[in-house]
């Protein structure tokens, strides 16, 4: 019964929903050059507000839509006023990180309020379908199309004919010049966030009705899809975002038709990577240039790092080395093992994001590559675990670098988007490549850690093993950074054009950073696989990528000691304060927000 026309209709309907998210992202990017990673959270809020309205308040449909739009707009205004406006004069990475923190907080608040279990969101519309040509169309399809088209019209009228709309357009082309015409940029930001949030919220409501199900995982997916559509259309280009969304909807729908549902997202991210690599300004960037990313090191907060005397570091290493000999509980060791594993990931990310300035949002993919390689080698080919872990590190280094290399010519925000997409692609390939990865079932029965034939099962030996590996990696990285390589990395971060003018090959140095970083992350993933004994495609997810980024920012970008300190703090402190697991992500989000606001250079300072 599913004809091509059906897939086309489905693609356009889903595209309409994406458009509501993407248009908001484009408006915000236009005015403040910011990719709002909290957009999906507003969409989530919209869906749940809609649920409250429909299921508990029994509001009629038009009222439900208005109610959702108004509440979502309020949330948007609050985010703008309290989350982002204080960061106006901050470094450019600050608002980006703040929106990530805000999205963590909002998602967790929704989850804590409504529980993570999916809920049904009835559409209140009659369940009939009309025959159209070879396909069918229902009232909900028409509603979504209607809302999409009327929102686009309203937005067009607003931007074209209202004074505030003119201000939005002027500010998005030249913020300073607009201010000199008397435009109050704060009001413009407010308007844009309010509109974006209203559209995003309604989008969440409609999607909830379309699938008759809402759950808290919707948020990240919506952000990702919106970002894909927006970038495909050209960042900051509002009509482009609409076309990009419809295109994305169609690509996904046809992709599903040919290959099956589990491939849906793979097409979205492949489309993104292809567009980013081939046309980073978007498909419709003929007349306008994509706004330039900063040329100099304003993306990352400059600071003077805290100097830690060598003896203090030695003492700290010694204390942690003899800790298992002291009467400490199994629980403390377990916590610290987690901290060492996260520390390795943070070492990797602090090199890539901090030292060479490529803020990766998909670092968990490197963990996954290392983990799967090591697990499969030891399980199917009986490779000794120690060697398998090293092979995992090497595979992560090689594959990670190859995957990211097409994006080497991107800068700033675009690097973050590309790495996010690559991270998702890795996870989706793991999910779909069943003959090798065992797909959704995951890999179980992974042999435990062992070294030279001796199994490391008791927590003390696991502790020593992971601690030693981390210290060795940290020493190697410190050595690397004190050589001329470190200087070249930082030169590229601070001004890649100047660095190139001095003869540095950007691709070579970026590759080196990713090779080294990939190895550390892959080793961490490999150890984790043997420690957990079971992994699947969701073990190493975007949340971990963001957690690693929080750790790195907490410690100070580029700071080797800071990465380890950050990992211990972020893993350890919630344990010390016995914070229940469901509140942890909330805490991480709040930590990220506070850091960005009050100490963007981190505890130990950026190097």
């Amino acid at each position, binding site marked *: 019964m599913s004809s091509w026309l059906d897939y086309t209709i489905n693609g356009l309907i889903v595209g309409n929903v994406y458009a509501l998210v993407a248009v908001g992202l484009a408006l915000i990017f236009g005015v403040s050059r910011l990719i709002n990673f909290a957009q999906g959270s507003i969409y989530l809020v919209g869906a749940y507000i809609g649920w409250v309205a429909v299921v508990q308040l029994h509001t009629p449909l038009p009222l439900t839509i208005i109610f959702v739009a108004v509440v979502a707009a309020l949330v948007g205004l609050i985010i703008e006023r309290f989350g982002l406006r204080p960061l106006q004069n901050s470094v450019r990475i600050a608002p980006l990180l703040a929106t990530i923190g805000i999205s963590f907080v909002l998602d967790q608040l929704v989850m804590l309020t409504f529980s993570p279990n999916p809920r049904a969101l009835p559409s209140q519309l009659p369940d009939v379908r009309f025959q159209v040509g070879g396909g069918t169309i229902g009232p909900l399809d028409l509603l979504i199309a209607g809302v999409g088209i009327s929102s686009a019209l309203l937005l067009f009228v607003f931007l074209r004919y209202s*004074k505030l709309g*003119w*201000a939005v*357009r*002027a500010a998005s*082309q*030249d913020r*300073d*010049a*607009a*201010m*000199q*015409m*008397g*435009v*109050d940029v704060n009001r413009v930001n407010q308007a844009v966030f309010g509109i974006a949030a209203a559209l995003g919220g309604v989008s969440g409501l409609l999607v909830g009705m379309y699938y008759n199900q809402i759950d808290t995982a919707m948020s990240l997916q919506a952000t990702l899809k919106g970002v894909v559509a927006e970038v495909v259309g050209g960042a900051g280009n509002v009509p482009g975002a609409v076309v990009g969304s419809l295109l994305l909807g169609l690509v996904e729908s046809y992709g599903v038709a040919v290959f099956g549902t589990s491939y849906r997202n793979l097409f979205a991210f492949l489309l993104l990577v292809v567009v980013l690599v081939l046309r980073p300004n978007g498909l419709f960037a003929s*007349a*306008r240039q994509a706004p330039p990313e900063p040329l100099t090191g304003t993306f990352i907060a400059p600071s003077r790092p805290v100097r830690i005397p060598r003896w203090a570091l030695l003492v700290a290493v010694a204390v942690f080395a003899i800790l298992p000999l002291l009467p400490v509980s199994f629980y403390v060791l377990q916590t610290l093992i987690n901290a060492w594993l996260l520390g390795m990931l943070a070492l990797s990310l602090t090199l890539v994001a901090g030292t060479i300035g490529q803020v990766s949002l998909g670092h968990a993919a490197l963990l996954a590559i290392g983990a799967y390689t090591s697990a499969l080698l030891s399980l199917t080919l009986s490779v000794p675990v120690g060697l398998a872990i090293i092979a995992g590190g090497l595979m992560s280094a090689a594959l990670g670098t190859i995957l990211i290399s097409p994006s080497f010519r991107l800068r700033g925000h675009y690097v973050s988007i590309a790495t996010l997409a690559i991270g998702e692609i890795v996870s989706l390939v793991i999910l779909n490549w069943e003959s090798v990865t065992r797909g959704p079932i995951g890999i179980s029965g992974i042999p435990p850690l062992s070294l030279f034939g001796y199994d490391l099962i008791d927590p003390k030996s696991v502790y020593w093993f992971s601690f030693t590996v981390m210290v060795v990696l940290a020493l190697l990285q410190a050595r690397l950074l004190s050589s001329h390589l470190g200087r070249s990395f930082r030169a590229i971060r601070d001004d890649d054009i100047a660095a190139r003018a001095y003869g540095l090959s950007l691709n070579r140095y970026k590759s080196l950073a990713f090779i080294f970083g990939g190895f550390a992350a892959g080793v961490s993933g490999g150890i984790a696989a043997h420690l957990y004994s079971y992994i699947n495609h969701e073990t190493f997810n975007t949340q971990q990528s963001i957690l690693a980024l929080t750790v790195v920012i907490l410690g100070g970008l580029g700071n080797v000691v800071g990465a380890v300190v950050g990992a211990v703090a972020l893993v350890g402190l919630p344990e010390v304060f016995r914070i229940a697991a469901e509140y942890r992500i909330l805490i991480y989000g709040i930590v990220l927000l506070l850091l960005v606001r009050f100490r963007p250079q981190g505890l130990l300072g950026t190097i």
Partner: protein
Amino acid sequence: MTTGAPEPLLALTNVNTFYGQAQVHFDLSITVGRGHIVCLLGGNASGKSTTMKIILGLVKPRSGEVTFDGASLIGLTTPQIVRRGIASVPEARRLFADMSVRENILMGAFVRNDREAIARDLDKMLTLFPKLGQRLSQRAGSLSGGEQQMVAMARALMSRPRMIVMDEPTMGLSPLYVDRVLELIRTINQEGVSVFMVEQNASLALEIAHEAYVLQTGKIVLSGSARTLKDDPRVRDAYLGGSEAA
């Protein structure tokens, strides 16, 4: 350092400005008399453009006073300052490239609400800048540099300002347009608008200015009427020689 005008329209008094650790202005004092054209001369990195930004509230001075028509501008936002009656022609024009010429000119009237008077003023701009008449629906970014300068000036005038500040209005223009721009500045001034302009091209600026200041690494080293400065050997050596040769 007063330049003869009884009550200045704009006065900067002992302004000190910093970018991080680096000091840009050292006790800068400048006045612009009502109905005058005042020119700030100086080479690269002398702090000229920062002076413009101070007046417009885009950069905040660490100390000192800025008054317009007797009232302090310190602490006001740029839009508030614009509403007080200061319009700007920014460096490199800074048009809204994707908006039409008409929209750009009308953006200048953003602070006004009198629709009919705005429409009349738009017509007036087209008599003042006749060339723009045929370009009204064109993308502003597609105009030539000289035409863009016309749009930027029309845009500034649309707010009915009492003063216009201009950052290097002749930079990058063909000689034909340079003369045209200077002529227009004079016309604008004759209609009662005070002008404060920052220029590198001293000989041209001194043609039309009433008073001028010379800024060197953040300090005023010379000031006075344009006529006396023009004959001052120090100005001639430092600025006029080079620009006349060019």
